[in-house]
Every structure is written in structure tokens, then in C-alpha cells.
């Protein structure tokens, strides 16, 4: 018996990313800029959701990211999420990340690559023509 927690459906704004989770599909999407006034409040929900999914479910989890600008606390939150995925992966869980970036902005790909450094699970960084 699994305890399903409610999915996230947070509309984006100029300073916050659009966040959408799909428990049934095992997917989490985040796109846009992230420099919210209170990053912890925003990301705590995401980290909570990821932790619950990885604990309660045995199904694969996939992250679809199209994040552009991240402030320091958002960078920290993303590192925490990637660490959770790494821990799960080390216990044999199927987890993966795809980070989409605007092909005109190669710098975002370089930064995504820095995030990927300590991750041994599948982590793709793929260019998108036009807006991601």
C-alpha cells in the first residue's frame, strides 16, 4: 500500500520556475528562471515530493529540466535533489535526468555539466532550437 502525496502544479513567474510533478508517470518537470524570494519554501515542496516518491514507489523517476538562470539557493536545492537521485540510484533504482537548454546559450549547458559531475545515473544535456 503506497501513500500517494499530492502532485505539484506550480505556475512559473518571472522569478520562479514552472514546476509540475506526475506521480503516476514518475516524472518531474521544472522550467524557467529561478531566483525566488524564498527558495527554501519553494524547493522544500519539490525535495519533499522527490523523497516521498523514491521512498514509497519502486517505479523509475525521470526529471525533465529546462532551467535557465538559478540563484545560489536554487543551485543548492538542485544539488540536493540530484544527491537524492544519486542515493536512490546507488540502491538500484532507475532514475534519470534530461536537461534541455537553448542552443543559442551554450553557457547553460556548461553549468548543467557542472551539476552532472557527481551523478552516475543517466543525465542528458540536450540543445533545443529556439526557446526550450
Amino acid at each position: 500500500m503506497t501513500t500517494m502525496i499530492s502532485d505539484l502544479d506550480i505556475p512559473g513567474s518571472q522569478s520562479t520556475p514552472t514546476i509540475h510533478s506526475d506521480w503516476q508517470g514518475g516524472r518531474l518537470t521544472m522550467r524557467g528562471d529561478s531566483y525566488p524570494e524564498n527558495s527554501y519554501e519553494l524547493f522544500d515542496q519539490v525535495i519533499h515530493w522527490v523523497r516521498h516518491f523514491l521512498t514509497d514507489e519502486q517505479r523509475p523517476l525521470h526529471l525533465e529540466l529546462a532551467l535557465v538562470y538559478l540563484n545560489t539557493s536554487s543551485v543548492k536545492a538542485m544539488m540536493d535533489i540530484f544527491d537524492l537521485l544519486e542515493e536512490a540510484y546507488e540502491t538500484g533504482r532507475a532514475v534519470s535526468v534530461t536537461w534541455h537548454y537553448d542552443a543559442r546559450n551554450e553557457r547553460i549547458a556548461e553549468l548543467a555539466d557542472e551539476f552532472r559531475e557527481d551523478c552516475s545515473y543517466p543525465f542528458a544535456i540536450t540543445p533545443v532550437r529556439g526557446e526550450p
Partner: protein
Amino acid sequence: MKDKEDDALLAQVAALLDSPEHVGHPLHDALQRLYLHHCDQQVQVQRLIDISDRYQSLAMEARQVTEQRYQRALRRQRKLSRISDGYQALMHERNQALHQASTHDPLTGLPNRRLIIERLEEFVRQRRRFTLTLLDIDHFKRINDCHGHDVGDRLLVAITQTLSATLRDYDLCARWGGEEFLLLLADTDRNEARSIVERLRSCLAAVTLRAGDQTISVTVSAGLSQHRPGDPHQTTLMRADQALLKAKRAGRDRSLSDSI
């Protein structure tokens, strides 16, 4: 070696105590108690050593765990700083690009109205002497109409290159409108400005551009106004504009100064 000697001594004492010939000897009882006391002490010492070793190895493990945690935290912190610095640099570059885009003309790369007006306001605030010159390419519309906007654009770029090469470093030249340029000649009175502008006009008249089998060249009209201390920059601009209008009406290909 020491242990072996100790064991040998103890074995010897035990053997002496056990031997029936020594029973009743005045030292027998005292030696027996000393022997037992020693054995007791030895057990105690061994227990202390064991406890101490266990404690030390626990402390060592704890230290290793702390050290590992510290190294991991340090590594994370460095990664965080590195990525965060990357985003900051990205933002800084974007700001610079935006600033450049908002203050410069994309075709010619010259400062736009916004930038030169900022500079004019500065000059007025600092009570610096300057002369403004509005330059206008004569019959530019004809070039656009006859050869297309592409040729018109190329001509504007060629004119800009000559303008930038001819002006002094401390002058500022902006693209004011379609084929109009505004020169801010710093620390310059109108007589000095006049000779600069005349030299500039002859350089610009020598600019040629190939369009198909034709060679295009243009003349330029100019209106000058020396800033009057205390005037807002708008007044000086208006006077330059009026001088330009007069130069146009007088038959173009000339420069005229607004009287102070």
C-alpha cells in the same frame, strides 16, 4: 622478550609455592599473597589496556567520519560556489549585452539617442563647453529608392566608419535618426567645431560604395550650435537642428552655425 621473562619468573614462583618442601617457611605465606596480588593486578592492567584501545579506536573512527563529512561538505560548498559564480557571470554578461543593445544602434554600432542624451545631460551638469553638430546625408532617400535599403544600410555603415576614424577620441558620435548623426564635440567652440566639421564633410564626400556597376557617393549637410552656459541641452539641440535646416535650404552640401 620481557613478557617471556615475566612468565618464566611467575612460573618459577608458582613452582616454589607448590613445592611441599617450602610449606611452613616464614616467607611462604607472604610470597603466596604477593603472587596472587600480582596476578590480580595483571588482569586489571590488561582490562584497562583493552578499554583504552577500544576507546581510542572509537575516537579514531569518529574522527574519520567527521573528516569524511567535512571533506564532502567542502567539496559540495566548492561545487555550489563554482556553479553559482557561473550563473552570476552569465547574468553579468547578459546585463552587459542588454546595456549595449539599449544604448547602441544595431546597424552601425554607434551610440543611440539614449546614450548621447545621457552624455549631454552630464556635460550640462558639469558645465563643460561643447558644440553640437547635426549631420544629415543629402538625398539619402534617393539612394534607398534607387538601389534598395540594403545599399542604403551599407552606405550608413561606410559613413559611420569614416566618422569614427576622423573624430577625436573624446568626441561622441551617435546615430540620431535614419540618416542623421549627432556629434558631441567636447571642449570645443563653434569656430574650432566648424573646421572639424568641414574636414569631416570632405572625408565623407570621398566615401564611395559600389552598387552593381555604379559607384555611389554622397554629400553631407551640417548644423552646428555651441552650447550656451545655463541652457538645457534641448535648446542647444534645437538650435543645431535649425542650423541644419538652414544649410539644407541654402542648397545642402554645407555646414552652418547657429549664432550664439
